[in-house]
């Protein structure tokens, strides 16, 4: 990643485009799951979303592998996509913007209390 890419995020745009074209090749039920996973994961993004790129890449890999096996997406992910996503984000240690706000809030209160 060079300076230009870091500032504009153009490297991510490129990556997202390649994710999209990979996702388009998946069966329809997989595509639907992919969209849901995306929706659940983005609240875990850091300011730029760069932390999510390797996670998304891995998940897409899993979907591609299992689709090629001929399994249904239900068989692969079960009915708890949300749980799956939080496990993913948690394992990668992806801190969300909300976590940062929480930290800030705690610090401010500690300061007010004179500690």
């Amino acid at each position, binding site marked *: 990643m060079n300076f230009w890419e870091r500032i504009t995020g153009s490297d991510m745009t490129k990556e997202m485009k390649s994710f999209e074209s990979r996702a388009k090749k998946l069966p329809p039920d997989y595509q639907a799951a992919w969209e849901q996973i995306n929706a659940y994961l983005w609240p875990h993004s850091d300011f730029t979303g760069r932390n999510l790129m390797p996670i998304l890449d891995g998940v897409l*890999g899993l979907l591609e*592998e299992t*689709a*090629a*096996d001929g399994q249904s997406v239900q068989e*692969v992910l*079960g009915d708890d996509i949300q749980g799956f996503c939080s496990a993913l984000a948690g*394992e*990668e240690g992806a801190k969300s913007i909300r976590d940062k706000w929480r930290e800030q809030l705690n610090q401010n209160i500690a300061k007010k209390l004179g500690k």
Partner: protein
Amino acid sequence: MLENLTEMLKGVLEGCVLEIISRNETYGYEITRRLNALGFTDVVEGTVYTILIRLEKNKLVQITKKPSDMGPPRKFFAINDEGREELRKFWEKWEFLSSKINELKETRP
């Protein structure tokens, strides 16, 4: 599978996966099938996937990518020395836990 076993299983599933990997180099699908055959029918590949990521992050396994007949290359997992040590600790903890819980059960009035 018994209902609501998932929560209880969560804590030990990582050890189970590591045990399966320790016997033979294997991949996600095979591990899931193995667990299903054991009777854990609710375990899906997605669950195993998140565990494999954790094992990889904690450097307990070694990974090789191998081309498959269809679809993208498959990730194969093999245990390493740190993984073996972790597995030993896991079984130790399990022995302790199961003996204590059985003890509790047997002393029922």
